[in-house]
């Protein structure tokens, strides 16, 4: 789905460049893309092709130099910083390459953090966090801090955290890059299952052929532009 009605997130003619020393390096050049409900999309391309930049723009982690990101029919550049924060909290989930769990919080507290941001109190938050941890296969790790978990377990906690507020889209930036192949397969199967069972859209920025193989739609970027956009 390149552009169209019913899109959860839509990028319209996005441009983003970074300044490196004296040089201005374009990362995304005129990209338009839409993510529909229930999609499982892989953004692939060589290093420097603009995958992560596009992911960040669509996830409202960054703002385009020009072009427009539209979320739930709201143009992102009309939103305040707080409104963008609330939108990320309520509609998006994020999974990072390096897991990015909060080290002083237990697995349960990490998962409960987005719920706390939304004002979910005490027991309800704890129950929901434990339910999510169980759903990612970590029912017995609730009280464990991230430094005592394996890489795969940390990524499962991060996935549970990403799902805490029932997001419409989960943005995953190289989620398997720091995992061995067996664990990476498990994590991908987990996300695929969540996509199928909950209807949550996933958008991956990845080099991993395993991810691409499981995707139902593959968008290939080259030099900041979409080279191809294929439904599989």
């Amino acid at each position, binding site marked *: 789905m390149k552009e169209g009605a019913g899109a959860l997130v839509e990028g319209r003619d996005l441009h983003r460049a970074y300044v490196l020393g004296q040089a201005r390096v374009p990362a995304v050049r005129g990209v338009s893309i839409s993510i529909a409900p229930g999609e499982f999309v892989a953004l692939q391309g060589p290093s420097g092709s603009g995958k992560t930049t596009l992911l960040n723009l669509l996830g409202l982690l960054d703002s385009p130099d020009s072009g427009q990101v539209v979320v739930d029919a709201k143009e992102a550049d009309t939103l305040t910083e707080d409104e963008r*924060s609330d939108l990320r909290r309520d509609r998006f989930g994020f999974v990072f390459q390096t897991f990015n769990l909060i080290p002083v919080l237990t697995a349960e507290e990490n998962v409960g953090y987005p719920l706390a941001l939304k004002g979910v109190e005490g027991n309800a938050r704890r129950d929901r966090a434990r339910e999510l941890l169980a759903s990612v296969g970590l029912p017995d790790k609730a009280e464990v801090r991230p430094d005592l978990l394996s890489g795969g377990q940390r990524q499962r906690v991060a996935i549970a955290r990403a799902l805490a507020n029932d997001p419409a889209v989960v943005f995953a930036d190289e989620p398997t890059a720091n995992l061995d192949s067996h664990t990476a397969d498990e994590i991908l199967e987990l996300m695929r299952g969540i996509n199928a069972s909950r209807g949550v859209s996933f958008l991956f920025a990845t080099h991993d052929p395993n991810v691409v193989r499981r995707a139902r739609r593959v968008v290939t970027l080259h030099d900041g532009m979409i080279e191809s956009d294929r439904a599989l």
Partner: protein
Amino acid sequence: MNAFALALRNLARQRRRSLLMIAVVTFGFAAFALAGGFVAQSFETLREGTIRTVGHLQAVDPRAVGRAEDVTLEFGIHDAHRARAVASQDPDVAAVLPRIEFVGLATNGSRSIPFLGVGVDPEPEAKATLAPEMLVKGKYLSGDGDDSVVLGTGLANALGVGVGGRITLLATTPDGSLNAVDGIVAGLVDVKIKELNDRYLAAGIGLVSRLVQSEDIVSKLVVFLKPRVDEAKVGERLKAALHAAGFPLAIQRWQDLAVFYGQVRLLYIGIFGFIGAVLVVIVILSAAIVMAMAVTERTREIGTLRALGTRPAGVRKMFLVEGVALALIGCAAGALLALIVRWVLNASGLTLPPPPGGTTGAPLNVKLYPLTYGVGFVAMLVTMTVAAYFPARRASRLPIVDALTHV
């Protein structure tokens, strides 16, 4: 998990740095509380000493305010007994002491020394003032009608007389003539200020009235008030009552009369203020560095929190709460340290050097003033909040993408 518990965990994570910061707050708070206690105690001692010398209020002829008399009792209060009775009727007045202030010459027969004399009503004077406590030898004046005098130790030395010695006092009368009476030295006092010690003489008002040949005239009425009354209000009331009774007198408060108190207070406030400012700067700089390092180290974490939907204010709050937590822990430890050091200092028996112009020091006594602890706590809390604010603001403004990729 609430913000405070999260702050404590983050502080525990950076244990060494947090301990260093807590130590800075602890010592800063303890220094503030101890110095504040010492200064407040000094103020209170000085205030009490001043009031017990000059009274809370003084009723004087308006012409005497800020002016010296050309002749003895030029601005005296006539019909002093009745004026004293009128002033004594106020329910908040504890005592009204008549005083005659005069200058003269004291001679032992071969040597004459000028003195600053005061005629007092001995019994109430002994009860209300520090006079008996300043006695170093002999006894204080006991009766109004006898010939006893009390001398400053310096004046006694200059005259070469001791307790029981006889001297002759010469002074001018209100009409300008010279008169002399004999006195017997009853006691020697140390009035704590060397220059005054060399000139001080006190005698009963009866003897002084005979010397200056006055009848029921005094220089001033010194008024002592009951505890915890409003000096200004009582002063207004006294003035009105005296005026109504035919005594158009001015009322001076002790603050107006005690120039020395005001100067010492200003000096102490200056010193204490400087120390306080240095402490605040040290704490602010230390805390700002610690918080800035925390922000730098946790930049990726901040990016993650922001990505998850934490608003900028939420990030600011997180670091501010850490600053407040450091302040609370540091102040609690500082209060404990201050109490221990105070106990050790007070038990040490150390003596302070004499104040400017003074002759004797006082035992070191750092009192426990809850107010200084309260002010110290608020100061540290504000200081830490200010110190944490700017790094916190910087953290909240970090671009999320930059923060997430921070190495």
